[in-house]
């Protein structure tokens, strides 16, 4: 637990705290609980999506189809709510997750078994998933009035002072942390990404790992699809358009190496939080929202440059013991 935050993450956290404090000094309303709660609720989808993307990137993969998956799964959940309003909410959410999981399975199966490069595969499914929404619905959208009341109210409910999306993000983040740090499979992901050949000699099944990460990314996209559709009260083919790049940006800012094998839950959450703050602070600061994209771009560039400098180490040490030996 002492290594929950490494140096780079501590620095990022410090930047965030100073930034939030500065914004708070300028506009005290930003620090009010209501605003912070809004910001976290707004960012909760990004938290989860970024963690799922991180797991994919850890294995040297990339999933460009997550936003399209989110849109399609959210749409399926919304359709169920429209046509079968009596189905319990839990089942609707599970339908969204299940849909996302199947789409992720499709990605994972073809990437792992056929060896199609992840960027090619997910670029293809990105177009397919989004288009499927049009094909299923014939261009129609599901509006707020057509969705069930409980379906829409769930993300707005407050439980123990926090909204449900925040709670879901907390639980999902905790699961990711346990998975990546406490389970053999999770540690194996770092091994596969760090050095696939060595991982193979250690007896780690790379194809099973690849299949797993795309399934995880798909399931999380499905869950977020429900949350997105229910929160904004509309489901159509264009929702979360281009969001996949925001998700990858959150990972990059959080110190996930696109080369695989490097990345942590805490860092990724901080990266997502950074983007979340940028997006919500601008209106509070009365800066035109048109600045948002330029600022994110500059931050991404700064983050990769800084991370690259920090990464420039002579060699990679896997065991903590080895690091201690090296110091002596």
């Amino acid at each position, binding site marked *: 637990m002492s290594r929950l935050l490494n140096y780079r993450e501590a620095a990022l956290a410090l930047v965030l705290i100073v930034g939030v404090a500065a914004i708070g000094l300028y506009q005290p309303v930003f620090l009010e609980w209501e605003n912070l709660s809004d910001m976290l609720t707004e960012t909760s989808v990004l938290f989860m999506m970024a963690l799922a993307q991180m797991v994919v990137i850890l294995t040297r993969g990339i999933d460009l189809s997550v936003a399209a998956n989110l849109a399609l799964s959210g749409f399926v959940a919304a359709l169920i709510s429209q046509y079968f309003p009596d189905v319990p909410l839990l089942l609707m959410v599970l339908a969204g997750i299940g849909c996302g999981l199947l789409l992720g399975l499709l990605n994972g199966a073809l990437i792992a078994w056929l060896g199609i490069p992840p960027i090619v595969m997910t670029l293809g499914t990105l177009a397919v998933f989004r288009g499927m929404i049009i094909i299923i619905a014939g261009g129609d959208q599901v509006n707020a009035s057509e969705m069930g009341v409980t379906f829409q109210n769930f993300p707005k409910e407050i439980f123990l002072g926090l909204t449900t999306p925040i709670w879901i993000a907390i639980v999902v983040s905790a699961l990711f942390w346990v998975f990546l740090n406490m389970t053999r499979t999770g540690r194996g992901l770092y091994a596969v990404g760090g050095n696939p050949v060595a991982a193979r000699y250690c007896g780690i099944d790379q194809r099973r790992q690849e299949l797993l990460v795309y399934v995880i990314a798909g399931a999380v996209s499905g869950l977020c699809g429900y949350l997105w559709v229910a929160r904004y009260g509309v489901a159509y083919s264009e929702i979360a358009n281009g969001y996949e790049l925001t998700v*990858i940006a959150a990972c990059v800012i959080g110190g996930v190496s696109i080369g695989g094998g490097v990345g942590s839950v805490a860092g990724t959450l901080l990266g997502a939080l950074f983007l979340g703050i940028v997006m919500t602070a601008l209106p509070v600061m009365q800066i035109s929202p048109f600045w948002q994209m330029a600022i994110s771009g500059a931050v991404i560039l700064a983050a990769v440059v800084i991370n690259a400098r920090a990464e420039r180490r002579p060699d990679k040490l896997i065991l903590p013991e080895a690091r201690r030996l090296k110091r002596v």
Partner: protein
Amino acid sequence: MTVDTQIGQQQDRYTVADAPPRTLRDWLLRWETILVILLVLTVVVNTIVSPYFLDVFNLADATFNFSEKAIIALAMALLILVREIDLSVAAIVALASMSIGYAAEAGYGPASLFAVGIGVGILCGVFNGAVVTFFRLPSIVVTIGTMSLFRGITQVILGDQAKTKYPQGFLDLGQSYFIKMKETGISWLFVPPVPLSFLIFLVLAVLFGIVLHKTAVGRQLFAIGSNPVAARFSGVPVDRLRFLLFVLAGLLCGLAAALLTARLGSMRSNIAIGWELDIVTMVILGGVSIAGGVGSITGVFLAVLVLGLVTFGMSLNNIPGQVVSVYIGALLIAVIGIPRIIEKFRR
């Protein structure tokens, strides 16, 4: 399994043996052959389905819709060939197009407007190339960043405004046929109408093909894509070439921006949005390996025609754009996946 095949491929690639004589089967399994078959299929199916498909003017108009992307795809092909990628191309188009818009308002003529677009494109390319080569960063991450940055700058400056004032001479370049239709009196012999953008694409494609496949620089690009370290040790100026390729991509984005702006006659900050993925699709369908070192301009050229004609044929039949993209996405996966499935079953 995967590791074994990877090692196997590497040995194949690095052992220097005489090339076995080409058999008919090798020729049939070549990527370009598959694309030619796809192209013929596309034309045949479309001709049967719609009587308007094989119309010279319709086909000429169809080229408007993909020529600008295709021009950028040529540079993207070289970038992917050397294991790099540029996701900021569409954002560069936006930034260059906005600069053209401001220059047009200031009263510059058509030639200057093209120069402004190309100049801004080159500047963006220099920035990309400098960050990638100087800091030794993965280009996918850098260009995701510059994609936001360039498009963001466009949004900051332009806000929700549109630029709609352009000199007529500039608009004519983008909207009318550069080469006019000429009848010769014989029904099958005529000079087809050709838009400027498609003409530029044709010329550039020939140029790129010659440079990539017939010159030392082209061989060096293949060398970088196959093994950058070995290429460096062989005296190939790896970083300089990488840098120049990013500049080249920027330049072509600027050119495409000028053509696009002239064609549309107006621009907003969301111009060319999502193009980066369309362009990467063109290149990958063209048989350029995302792992680097494999690819041909002929393949990219054929893929551009296949994608352009599939899209055009479907739009003739009133199929909405996003449904077209389903077919294109599926086509991409199928074309990459099916040879791998065949390979699996043969073993």
